[in-house]
């Protein structure tokens, strides 16, 4: 009973779904306001999802409908587990063990993997192009993301445990400085992970149709969208855990801080999305190979030197 409550209500499905939907709606509204438009209502993602439930499925002949629905469903389950691992306030006693950050990192990779598999599986040329592009991008931004995680893990002292809780509780002045230094790398790698504008290469808004999701329709597409919303919730709260003193305060204030941090992250995303245009794949890899990965490594080395001196 307790577990079902955890799974479906507070840190699980409902919380992630509502938080992700509100974040997406907030981002779309902000984006519209920055372009002097009125923009959709903040609840728009929920309308989209429930409308997709009503639609029929038109799938390619060669795919069996079981696989068609299974591929998007696996990451949904994975992301729910990811939400359950995170030490949310009111819940933290049950979660947080060593190396949970690594597990979260793998679980948040699953939606993209499922999209790549779906793109190749659906046999549509646009899906294959999108999947190939997504697979190529995969290595670059994950490099930066791993650097960021490792840097943050070095903050907590010698038995490096990659534990989200101990990162969230490291608040010395030096730690704060290093945390602030890693913010841009975190933002860039998450932007690429979520396929937002300067790095919206795999689906390219509407230019190569919808990238890997070209053949998805009806409930399958709704599941993909749900995955996306859960991902948004996870990255929003991850930002709050890393860079705000969430676990240092009382649980209520901690929860409010998580929401504030997530919405602030999406404010930055809206700004970056509006201010930049989509890069080519070569420009993307040049940006990561020439600037972001070396700089992230530099910060990692500096942190190690400072911490072990």
């Amino acid at each position: 009973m307790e577990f079902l409550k955890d799974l479906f209500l507070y840190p699980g499905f409902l919380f992630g779904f509502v938080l992700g939907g509100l974040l997406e709606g907030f981002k779309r509204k902000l984006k519209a306001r920055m372009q002097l438009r009125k923009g959709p209502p903040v609840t728009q993602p929920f309308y989209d999802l429930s409308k997709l439930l009503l639609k029929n499925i038109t799938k390619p002949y060669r795919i069996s409908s079981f696989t068609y629905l299974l591929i998007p469903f696996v990451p949904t389950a994975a992301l729910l587990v990811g939400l359950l691992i995170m030490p949310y306030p009111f819940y933290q006693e049950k979660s947080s063990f060593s190396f949970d950050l690594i597990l979260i990192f793998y679980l948040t990779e699953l939606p993209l993997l499922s999209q790549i598999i779906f793109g190749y599986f659906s046999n549509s040329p646009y899906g294959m192009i999108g999947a190939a592009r997504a697979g190529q991008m995969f290595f670059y931004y994950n490099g930066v993301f791993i650097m960021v995680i490792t840097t943050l893990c070095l903050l907590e002292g010698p038995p490096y445990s990659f534990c989200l809780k101990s990162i969230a509780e490291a608040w010395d002045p030096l730690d704060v400085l290093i945390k602030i230094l890693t913010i841009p790398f975190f933002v860039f790698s998450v932007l690429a992970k979520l396929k937002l504008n300067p790095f919206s290469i795999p689906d390219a808004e509407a230019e190569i149709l919808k990238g890997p999701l070209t053949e998805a329709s009806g409930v399958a597409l709704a599941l993909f969208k749900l995955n996306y919303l859960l991902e948004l919730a996870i990255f929003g709260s991850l930002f709050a855990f890393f860079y705000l003193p969430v676990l240092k305060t009382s649980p209520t204030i901690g929860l409010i801080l998580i929401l504030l941090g997530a919405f602030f992250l999406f404010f930055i995303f809206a700004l970056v999305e509006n201010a930049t245009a989509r890069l080519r794949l070569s420009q993307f890899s040049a940006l990561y190979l020439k600037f972001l990965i070396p700089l992230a490594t530099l910060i990692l080395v500096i942190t190690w030197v400072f911490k072990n001196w």
Partner: protein
Amino acid sequence: MVKLIGWLLTNLFKKPLTIEFKGKSLKAVRGTYRGYPTHRGERCAACRLCIYVCPSDAIRIEGSLFIINKCKCTACKDCADACPFGAMQFIPRLIGTAISKNEYMEITEIKLVKCENCGEPMPKPELLLGRLLGKPPKTIPPYLKLCPKCRRQFFKPT
């Protein structure tokens, strides 16, 4: 880039440019909008010049009914330029949406007068005279009130 971000941030506090869309549709457009042709039956002489110039066959005359098919009209204004009597007018209004194509037929009646002798419908004589003299006529000579056929009978050229 910095300038652009500054603009974006100030835009957040400005009023949106979007125009209100209340109810079903927005009727008011600016005065410079060209709009769509409207036919005025009382000025038309049924000379069919507009049918001749219309590039997309949008105009039809059936009996005394003047039909503009707005499914075909491309708002090129050729008809208004060609009409000698100024019966085609462009007023700035929008062409609406429709569920069936019949809503796009704009039907007006041409006001024809009857020949005093045989009762055959014929265009108003004062229109033709006004066009001929350049100003509205004061009196209309009696032979103009007959249709061309009757005119030939009564006033035989000698």
